[in-house]
């Protein structure tokens, strides 16, 4: 077999089948007598007010944003890290510059006070 990803794909299928099997067994064994009280939303036992359409903090977006940038950065850094031992010394500095540029972005967000959870 040329392609190891077929194995990974099979693993994915089995990894889904096992939990599904557990749920199916539970479905067969467990009783099912739904009623409105039982199915109501649970919030510490008091009556639920409104639905779950609550407003969110923009802060979540900021953290997601910084994460996205660093995530993409690692994509570039992984090949760099793998091949570093076979490369001349200046390749190290190129990587360091790359990281520093991105840390500057983090520093900017920090200075702007965007990393505070207010």
């Amino acid at each position, binding site marked *: 077999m*040329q*392609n*190891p*990803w077929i194995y*990974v*794909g099979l693993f994915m299928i089995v990894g889904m089948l096992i939990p599904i099997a557990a749920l199916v067994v539970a479905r067969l064994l467990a009783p099912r007598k739904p009623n409105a009280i039982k199915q109501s939303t649970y919030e510490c036992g008091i009556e639920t007010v409104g639905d779950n*359409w609550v*407003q*969110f903090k*923009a802060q*979540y*977006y*900021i953290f*997601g*944003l*910084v*994460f*996205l*940038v660093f*995530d*993409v*950065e*690692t*994509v*570039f850094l*992984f*090949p*760099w*890290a*793998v*091949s*570093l031992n*076979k*490369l001349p010394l200046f*390749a190290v500095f*190129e*990587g360091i*510059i*790359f990281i520093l*540029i*991105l840390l*500057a*972005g*983090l520093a*900017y*967000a920090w200075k*702007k006070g*965007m990393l505070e959870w207010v």
Partner: protein
Amino acid sequence: MNASQVLFLVFAALTLGSALMVVTTKKMIHAAFWLIATLFGVAALYALLNAGFIAMVQLVVYVGAIAILFIFAVMLTRKDLRDSAKSLNANWGWAALFSALMFGGFAILLRQWDGFGMKEAGALPATDMITKLGTALVTPTQYLLPFEVASVLLLAALIGAVYVAATNK
């Protein structure tokens, strides 16, 4: 039809089917989840192309970060998503026609290309792809400039986005 072709068709169907759902489904949050399905399908296509690195990057960047960011944005801006009954604008008929024409144009263009009938991919080199990629990214004669420019681009995006999202809170 051999096994890999069947696999391809399955993943292509997944990709295109969920892509259609992305552009037509009414609830924005569902559109975001359908996008994730599309991205999975595309990652599987990469894996079929022996581009394991790209497939993983697809999952890490798109599913792990971009899709999450989309879901965050949908949650943040959803107040009037509930109210708007129609998800498509008035010109959607023209848009559909234009897209179909675009696809037809692509098909005609591609048919004229010499390589279109290619059935077999070339043999993969024995050397490790990742090492080659890393070497190419930091060799000045190859892709050093895009490598560094990418980090500047990401920096600019981060600063710009933080600035835009942060004002008047």
